[in-house]
C-alpha cells in the first residue's frame, strides 16, 4: 500500500483529506507540527510527503530543508496558504517537487499526488548510464556527476536533468520535461519548471549556462567547446 505523510496543523482539514485520500487507496499518516513531522518523515518510509508551510514549531520551509539533508529521494508536495508568490516558489527552491496553493480543489490534490507517485518508478526506465555535455547520469544509483562531481539533486531535478541529457542537445519542450519530472502536463501560468531548472543551474559550479533556455520552446544542453 502506498504510504503518504501529511504534515499540517489544521486538524479538521487533515482528517477530511485523510477520508479523501483513503478512499483513493492511500494510507495516510498525520503529523500536526513540525517536530513530529520531521521525526515521522525521517523514521518511516513514505512514498510521498504532503507538507504545509505554516506550522507551529519548525515551519514547513525549515522542515523541508532539514529533510532534504537526509532524505533526497522522497517526493514532497508543498501545500501553501501564504499569500506571496515568492513563498510558493521558495518551497521549490528548497527542494520540494511540486506545490499546490491553498485553498485547492481536492481533486487537484489527488491528481498531483498521483502524478508525483506515477513519476517515481520512471527512474528505472533507462537503466543504462547516459552522458552529454559533461553530465554523467547513472539511473541505477540515482546519481548525476558533472565534471566528475556528484550533484545533490532532488528527485524532480534528477528527472529533469536525466531527460535533458537523454535529449543529447536537442530542445526538450517544457511539457515533455513536466511530464517526465512532475508526472503531469504543465498547467497554464505555472512557473515550477523554470524554478527547478534555475535550482539545477545554481548547483552546477562551472558553466551552468550549458543548460540553455530556448525561449518559447523549452530547454537544451549545450556541448562545451
Amino acid at each position, binding site marked *: 500500500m502506498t504510504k503518504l505523510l501529511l504534515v499540517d496543523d*489544521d486538524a*479538521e*482539514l487533515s482528517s*477530511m*483529506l485523510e*477520508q*479523501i485520500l483513503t478512499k483513493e487507496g492511500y494510507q495516510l499518516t498525520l503529523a500536526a507540527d513540525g517536530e513530529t513531522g520531521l521525526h515521522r518523515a525521517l523514521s518511516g518510509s513514505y512514498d510521498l510527503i504532503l507538507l504545509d508551510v*505554516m506550522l507551529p514549531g519548525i515551519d514547513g520551509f525549515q522542515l523541508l530543508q532539514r529533510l532534504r539533508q537526509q532524505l533526497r529521494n522522497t517526493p514532497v508536495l508543498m501545500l501553501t*496558504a*501564504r*499569500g*506571496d*508568490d*515568492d*513563498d510558493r516558489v521558495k518551497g521549490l527552491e528548497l527542494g520540494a517537487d511540486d506545490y499546490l496553493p*491553498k*485553498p*485547492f*480543489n*481536492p*481533486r487537484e490534490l489527488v491528481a498531483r499526488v498521483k502524478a508525483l507517485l506515477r513519476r517515481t518508478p520512471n527512474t528505472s526506465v533507462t537503466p543504462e548510464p547516459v552522458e552529454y555535455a559533461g553530465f554523467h547520469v547513472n539511473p541505477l544509483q540515482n546519481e548525476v556527476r558533472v565534471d566528475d562531481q556528484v550533484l545533490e539533486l532532488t528527485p524532480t531535478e534528477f528527472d529533469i536533468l536525466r531527460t535533458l541529457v537523454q535529449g543529447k542537445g536537442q530542445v526538450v519542450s517544457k511539457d515533455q520535461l513536466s511530464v517526465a519530472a512532475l508526472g503531469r502536463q504543465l498547467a*497554464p*501560468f505555472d512557473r515550477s519548471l523554470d524554478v527547478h531548472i534555475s535550482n539545477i543551474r545554481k548547483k552546477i559550479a562551472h558553466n551552468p*549556462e550549458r543548460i*540553455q*533556455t*530556448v*525561449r*518559447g*520552446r523549452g530547454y537544451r544542453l549545450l556541448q562545451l567547446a
Partner: protein
Amino acid sequence: MMRWYHSLTLRLLLLFWALLLAVAASGFLLAMWSANPETPRPLPAEVRDILSPLLTDQATFASLTPGRLLAGEYRVAAAVTPEEGPNRLQLEPNLANTHRRELMQQLDAEEPEKLRLPNGMLVGPFTLGNQRILLIRPLSNEERLDFQQHVEEAEHAQTLVLLFGSLFIAVLLGVWLVLPLKRLTKATREIAAGADFLHLKRLPKRSDELGELARALETAAHDLKVSRDAQRRLLSDVSHELRSPLARMQVALMLSQDDHDDATNSHLQQLSRDVERLSTIIERILSLSRLENGLVKLNPQTIDTYQLVQTLVADLAYVDANYGERLLVLDANWPVTASDEELLRLVIENLVRNALQYTAGLVELDCAVHDDKTFTIIVRDHGDGVPEQQLEQLFEPFFRGDPSRHHKSGVGLGMTLSLRAANVIGGVVSARNHPEGGLEISIRLPLNTPTQDDEQIEVRGS
C-alpha cells in the same frame, strides 16, 4: 538632549557675528596700513646743505615760529623754544589737528629726516642750542602722484582681501550648512524609496538641530521598516487565516457531494464556485495591498515582450479555447526590455482578461516603441467602449461599467491591479475609446536595456 550652546541658531548668529567682525577688522587693519604707510627716511645731504646755512644764526632761529616761510617753499611746522612754560612747544595749527603724533615723534628724532604726509613733506628736526624746529613743504607733483598711486594700490589690496575672505567664509558656511542639508534631502528620498539604512555619514553625531534632524530621520526610517515588516506579517497572517477555512470548505464540499442527489449537488457546486471566487477575491485584495504598500520585491530580468504575450495568449487559450480564438497578437516591433516579468505579466494579463470578459469580439495586442526610453503595449477590444465620463473610474476597485453583468464577470479588481502593478514597474496605464469603436488601454513603460549577463537566447515564434 540638546544643550543651549548646541543650538544652530546660536551658532549661526555667532558665525555671522564672527564673519562681520573679521571683515570689519581686516578693513580696519587695511585702513591703518594705507593711512600710515610712511616711515621717516634720512634727509638727503643736499637738502641739509641748502637748509643748514639758514639755520645757523641764533636770532633767526629764535624767531622761527610755526607758519613762517623760511626759504623756497619750506615753512615752519613746529618749534621747541628754550623758554620754559606753556608756549615752549609751538605747532602749526592745521598740522597739529591732523598729524600731531607725527610732529611730536619727528621732533624727538636724532637726525634730521624727511617724512611724507598726505599734504606735505615734513623735514627735520633742525637743532640749534636747545631749540628745535620742523619744516614742511608742499609735495611736488611727482610725489603727489606717487602718493595717490600708493593709496589706490592699498584700496585694491583691501578689495581683494575682502573678496577672498568673504568667499572663504561662504565656502565654509556651505560645507558646514548646505552640505548636510543636501545629505538630508537625499536621505529623505532614500526613505521614500523604502530604504531602511540611510547614508548620513557623521551627520547624526552632530549636536545641533541638523544632527537632531538626521537622528529623527534615522528613527523614522527604522520605524517605517518595522511597520512595513509588521504589515507584511499581517498580510501573510490574514492570508493564512482566510485561506485555511476556505480550504476546509472546499474539501468538505467535495466530501458532501458524493452521497447526495443531483439537486443538492448543483447547490454544492454553486457553493464550490463561490468558494473559489472568494479565494480569488482574497488573493487579489492581498496582491493589491502588497503593491500599494510597496511590499513587492522587484526582480528585474530580461524580457522579450513578444514572447511574454505569446505565452500569455497560449495560457489563456489553454484555460478557454474561445479566448484563444479571440486573441490576436499584432506583428509589431515588440522590444526586449529589463523589468519584473511577473508584474509585467500581471499588468497585461488582467487587462486582456478584462477585455475578453466584457466584450465578445476580437481582442488585439499591439506594441509601439517611441524612442530609446519608452514603449507602449496596447490592448484593444471591439466592444461598445465605455462612456467618456467613466473612463477615469475604470481603474477604481470594484467598479463595473455595466452593473447588470455583475455575476458573470470577474471580481472587479483586475484593472486596479493592472494600474498599481504598472506603477510599481514605472509604467502608466491609460484608457480611451478607439475612434473606430472599442476600448483601448495603453500601458506606457520604460524601455530598459537588458543586462549583459543574461545567457538566454531569443527564438521567436516557434
